[in-house]
């Protein structure tokens, strides 16, 4: 059996898409190809323009500049009701005056599908999203948060869109249920084979579900890549910090031509950044790659500091270590003996292969 490695063709294409509200630039010249059938997540802090981007894709906002094409056809001005796309809102926007069944059947009713076909399809979709069949006549406002998510999902699927958009629909759900729904959504993506575009401010959420992640900041897409790429090779400090808690060490070229930590005395063997002329750079080290060194043990880069506090993170223990005026975070798996009581002097180390050097 041979594996088809042909690159999937883009279903949605954005070229130089820009959106301004008065003087405010919400989305700033974005180029993006969305592949057929992929699960793409746009992640960014609030105010980064991700919702505006999604609203333009759904047809609720019109770009100020640039082109959005679907299957190669320009759709900038096509209204939402004429697009084969559907948006699951942050608030879900379920119709409170309709039952679960009527909510799901809504897009079919609008299209003039007869009652029996509608109901059959609704029940089928309720199975897909794991809602019990007797919920068909239930008041949608009496459903729990998780059930409402499923109703919203079923309603969007009833529209039978080619592309589904999600505007942080899981943001108001408690942690445990969120974890379940994230996985279900990814399973649903597989079952339906449709293109999903999801936006969230939580990279953790994005990591679980996505085939690809685009990180947005101040109206621009800073980096697009697989979850592994985003995690292992962040494009810059912003992306690396967005992934989670990281140690950022500013380094500068010394007179001798070696790279040293700024205000962080230690022994360094930092590889220079790609830009040969640069005199300064940042080294990003994840807490799990920062080690507490035993007596006599060495690493490519070594620092010395004082343990300030210890935090339990479930499967791991995190230490806050003060090195000079800076704070470093170190994580060790629980159960591994770490001789690091409060106020103990410790040596920290990280290897060159675990350090990510970014220019800015």
């Amino acid at each position, binding site marked *: 059996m041979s594996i088809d490695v042909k690159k999937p063709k883009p279903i949605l294409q954005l070229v130089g898409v820009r959106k301004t509200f008065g003087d405010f630039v919400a989305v700033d010249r974005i180029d993006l190809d969305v592949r057929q059938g992929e699960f793409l997540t746009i992640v960014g802090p609030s105010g980064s323009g991700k919702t505006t981007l999604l609203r333009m894709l*759904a*047809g*609720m906002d019109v770009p100020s500049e640039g082109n959005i094409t679907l299957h190669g056809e320009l759709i900038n001005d096509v*209204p*939402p*009701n004429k697009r084969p*796309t*559907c*948006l699951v*809102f942050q*608030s879900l*926007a379920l*119709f*409170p*005056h309709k*039952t679960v069944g009527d909510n799901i059947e*809504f*897009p079919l*009713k*609008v*299209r003039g599908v007869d009652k029996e076909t509608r109901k059959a399809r609704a029940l089928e979709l309720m199975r897909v999203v794991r809602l019990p069949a007797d919920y068909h006549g239930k*008041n949608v*406002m009496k459903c729990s948060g998780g059930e409402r998510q499923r109703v919203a999902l079923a*309603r*969007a699927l009833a*529209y039978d869109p080619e592309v589904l958009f999600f505007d942080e629909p899981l943001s108001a759900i408690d942690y445990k249920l969120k974890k379940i729904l994230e996985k279900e959504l990814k399973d649903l993506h597989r079952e339906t084979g449709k293109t999903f575009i999801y936006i969230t401010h939580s990279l953790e959420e994005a990591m679980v579900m996505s085939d690809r992640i685009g990180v947005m900041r101040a109206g621009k897409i800073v980096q697009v890549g697989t979850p592994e790429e985003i995690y292992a090779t962040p494009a810059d400090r912003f992306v690396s910090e967005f992934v989670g808690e990281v140690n950022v060490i500013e380094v500068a070229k010394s007179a001798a031509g070696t790279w040293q930590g700024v205000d962080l005395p230690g022994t360094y063997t930092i590889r220079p950044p790609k830009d040969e002329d640069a005199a300064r750079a940042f080294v990003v080290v994840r807490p799990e790659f920062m080690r507490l060194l035993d007596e006599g043990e060495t690493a490519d880069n070594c620092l010395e500091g004082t343990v300030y506090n210890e935090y339990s993170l479930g499967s791991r223990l995190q230490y806050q270590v003060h090195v000079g005026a800076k704070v470093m975070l170190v994580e060790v798996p629980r159960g591994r003996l770490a001789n690091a009581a409060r106020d103990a002097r410790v040596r920290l180390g990280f290897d060159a292969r675990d350090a990510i050097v970014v220019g800015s």
Partner: protein
Amino acid sequence: MDINARRTRAFVTLWTILVLVAIYLPIVCGALASLSKGRYFGFPVREYSMEWWGKTVDSIEIGMLTRTSFAVAITVTLLSVVIAFFGALAFARYDWKGRRLFQKIVLLPIFFPQPVLGLALLLWFSALGIQTSWLTAVFAHLVWIVPVVTLVISIQVYGFDPTLEEAAYDLGCSRWQVFREVTLPLLWPGVWSGMLFAFLLSWGNFPLSLYTAGADSTIPKWLYAKMVAGYTPMVPALGTMSTLGAALALGLGGIVLYLYRRRQAQ
């Protein structure tokens, strides 16, 4: 329960009774007066009879003015609810330049003294050469009632989530389908309350009708005219009937609203 709480409760009960008596006793007295056999307005009633109620129902004149009152109230209800519905959307749903000014101006007529408003309108009607009749009274009622109904419907609009319209539009609705399937059903309780307000305020309105109805008479206008000259016990009889009619409309309206809300809550 300590003595203080008991005292507070006793006071609250007493106060409630006093207020209820002050509000409803006069209406009851009017009703009792209409059941008097005597020719003159007096209290307490010496001898009870349904005689004047019968005469009121049979009166051709009263039949005519009841029809006029009905025509005015129904026309005002229908027109004001249509105008106020879209006014309320502008008031509370859409954000547009000048909205705050609109919000203030549109509510202003509620605070005009009605006799002054009636007089002003009458002056305009005669300046423009418009013959006053129940139709001009409808116009005058609208000037005062549309703002009230706009406010009533706006309260419902404020609780309305505009994303629901966007969602319906996204799910393939035309603008008209969005309105019919989402906007109107969700705003319906407000529209219904607004209709009740419009009907009852028009039905009971005296000052505007006095100035602007011309030769046409409405129930409040007739009641006043008969009190000034030519009193008959038909005055309290018709007054009571009119009150009961209003109460009936309110009761029916309330029941419809209750059933609608309950059906939604299922």
